[in-house]
C-alpha cells in the first residue's frame, strides 16, 4: 500500500529519469498499457539491424553485426588438419564466444561473465545442429587433410539480445568466408598459396574452383520477453533486467524450429503465447534474410 501510494504521488513530482530508476517496472508498465516502449518502438518490432561484411581484413571471413546498440564481431580463421579416422572426409568447426570487459559495466577483467559460456554453447549447438554447413565441404584430401574453421565471436557492446546478434554475425561471417587456395607440395603436405605465387607456381591448386561455402537452411533467431499478457520483441539490457522471462526462438529459412529456449523465468508460457512468439519470429526471419542478402550483394559488387 505504501509503495503504490508513494509512486502514485511522486509520479507527478519526480523527473522522468528518476522515476525510471526508482520504479522501473511501473515506468515500463505505463508504456506497455499504451502498447509502446520507452524507445518508441511498438511491442513486436525489433531494433534497427545492420551487417558489415569483411570487417577484419586479416581473417578468412568476418562480419560485424549490430542490432540496436548490441554489437558483435565474428571472424573465422582456417587451418589445415588431419581429419579423425571415424570421419575421414569431414572437416571441423570450432565456435567460441567472448565477452571482454569493453562490452558491459558488469563484466570485470579476469572474471568471465556468466552469460559467456552459455551463449557460446548455444551458438555452437545451433550452428552445428541446423545443418547450415555441410562438413564434407571442408574436406581437401580424403583421410589426409581437411579444414578446421575457428570462429571467434566478440561482444563489443552488450545491450540485450546477445544470442540474436551473435548468431547473425556468425552466419554473416560464414557467408563472407573465402577458403584460401592450397596445393600439395612434394612431401605430400598441403601448403597455402599466396596471391603472387598463384600465377607462377607449377603446382596445381587443389581447390581452385571451390572457394565459398554453400549455406542452406540458414538459422535466424529472435528473443522475446513475456510479461503478463505482453510480448516484447528484441529486448534491450534494461528490459531484460527488469522483466526476467526470456524466450529465444530460432527458425531456419524453411520455417523449421531449430531451437526454442526458455530458461525458467517467473512467467509461464502458454500455447497461445508461444504461437504468437513464433509468428513474430517468422516475420523477423524474413527481415533478416533481406538484410543479409543485401549485405552479400553489396560486397559482390566491389
Amino acid at each position, binding site marked *: 500500500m505504501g509503495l503504490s501510494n508513494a509512486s502514485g504521488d511522486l509520479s507527478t513530482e519526480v523527473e522522468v529519469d528518476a522515476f525510471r530508476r526508482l520504479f522501473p517496472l511501473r515506468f515500463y508498465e505505463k508504456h506497455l498499457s499504451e502498447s509502446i516502449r520507452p524507445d518508441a518502438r511498438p511491442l513486436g518490432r525489433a531494433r534497427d539491424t545492420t551487417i558489415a561484411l569483411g570487417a577484419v581484413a586479416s581473417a578468412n571471413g568476418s562480419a560485424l553485426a549490430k542490432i540496436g546498440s548490441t554489437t558483435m564481431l565474428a571472424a573465422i580463421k582456417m587451418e589445415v588438419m588431419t581429419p579423425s579416422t571415424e570421419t575421414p572426409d569431414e572437416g571441423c568447426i570450432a565456435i567460441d564466444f567472448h565477452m571482454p570487459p569493453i562490452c558491459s559495466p558488469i563484466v570485470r577483467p579476469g572474471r568471465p561473465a556468466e552469460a559467456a559460456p552459455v551463449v557460446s554453447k548455444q551458438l555452437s549447438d545451433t550452428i552445428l545442429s541446423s545443418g547450415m554447413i555441410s562438413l564434407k565441404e571442408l574436406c581437401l584430401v580424403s583421410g589426409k587433410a581437411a579444414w578446421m574453421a575457428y570462429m571467434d565471436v566478440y561482444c563489443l557492446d552488450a545491450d540485450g539480445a546477445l544470442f540474436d546478434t551473435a548468431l547473425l554475425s556468425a552466419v554473416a561471417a560464414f557467408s563472407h568466408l573465402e577458403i584460401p587456395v592450397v596445393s600439395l607440395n612434394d612431401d605430400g603436405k598441403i601448403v597455402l598459396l599466396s596471391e603472387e605465387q598463384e600465377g607462377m607456381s607449377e603446382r596445381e591448386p587443389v581447390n581452385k574452383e571451390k572457394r565459398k561455402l554453400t549455406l542452406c537452411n540458414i538459422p535466424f533467431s529472435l528473443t522475446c520477453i513475456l510479461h503478463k499478457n505482453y510480448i516484447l520483441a528484441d529486448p534491450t539490457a534494461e528490459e531484460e533486467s527488469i522483466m526476467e522471462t526470456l524466450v529465444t526462438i530460432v527458425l531456419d529459412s524453411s520455417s523449421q524450429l531449430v531451437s526454442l529456449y526458455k530458461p525458467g523465468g517467473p512467467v509461464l508460457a*502458454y500455447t497461445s503465447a508461444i504461437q504468437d512468439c513464433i509468428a513474430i519470429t517468422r516475420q523477423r526471419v524474413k527481415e533478416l534474410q533481406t538484410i543479409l542478402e543485401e549485405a552479400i550483394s553489396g560486397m559482390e559488387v566491389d
Partner: protein
Amino acid sequence: MEVDREDGRTQNQLRPLACSRNVLHRAHGSASWYQGDTKVLAAVYGPKAGTRKNENPEKACIEVIWKPKTGQTGKLEKEYEMILKRTLQSICILTVNPNTTTSIIIQVVNEDGALLPCAINAACVALVDAGIPMKHLAVAICCCVAKSGYVILDPTKLEEQKMKSFAYLVFPNSVHSVLTGGSVQGEPMEHGIITSVTHGIMSVDDYFYCLERGRAASAKLSDFLRRSLQQHPTDSSKAG
C-alpha cells in the same frame, strides 16, 4: 504406429522412477532421483546469510553447482547451472528470506539420457526436504522426435543420440485445489511451460505435439511426486 524401443517400452512409457529424501546427513535437504539408469543426487544448503556480489539483496539468491560424473566442469555444466538456477528462481518464493543464499548442489551419479530433467526433479525434492518456501513444484520430462514425426518420452542415451531432435520441458506440478477455476487464458496453470530447451531441428507442429505428450506425462509425474513426498516421514530438524 507401433514403435519398437530397445528396452521394450511403449512410446509414452516412462522408465521406472525412484525417489528418496534425506539421503545425506550434513545437508539441510537432500534427495536422490532415479529414472531408469540415470541417477542424480541433489543437496540443498540454506538459507545462508548474505548474497553474492551483484545480486539483489531484497530477494533470496539461489546458487547452483553442477558436478559431472567425470571430468572438469565446462560450458555444458555452466549452461545446466544457469537453466537450473533460473527454473528454481521462478518456483521459489524469493521474498520470504531476503538477503540470503540457498545453494543447490547436483551430483551426477550415472548418465543414461534425460539428465537435465532428472536433475530438476531431484532439486525440487531436495528443496522440499530442506523446507525452502516454494509456490509450486516443477516436473521435468524429455521428449524425443524421430524423423517420421513420432514422439517418444524419457529416452535413454542411445535413443537421444539416434533421434533427430529432443526437447527438455518443465511444467508446474498439478494442483489439487478445493476451488475450481484459476485458469489463465483458457488453459489450466499446469499447462504453462516453465522451461523449454530443444536440441536439433523439428517442425513447429512436432514441438506442439511434444508439448501435449509432455503435459500428459507431467500429470503422471506429479502424482508420483505427491505420493512419494506424502509417504516419507520427516526426520527431526537438523541444526544449522
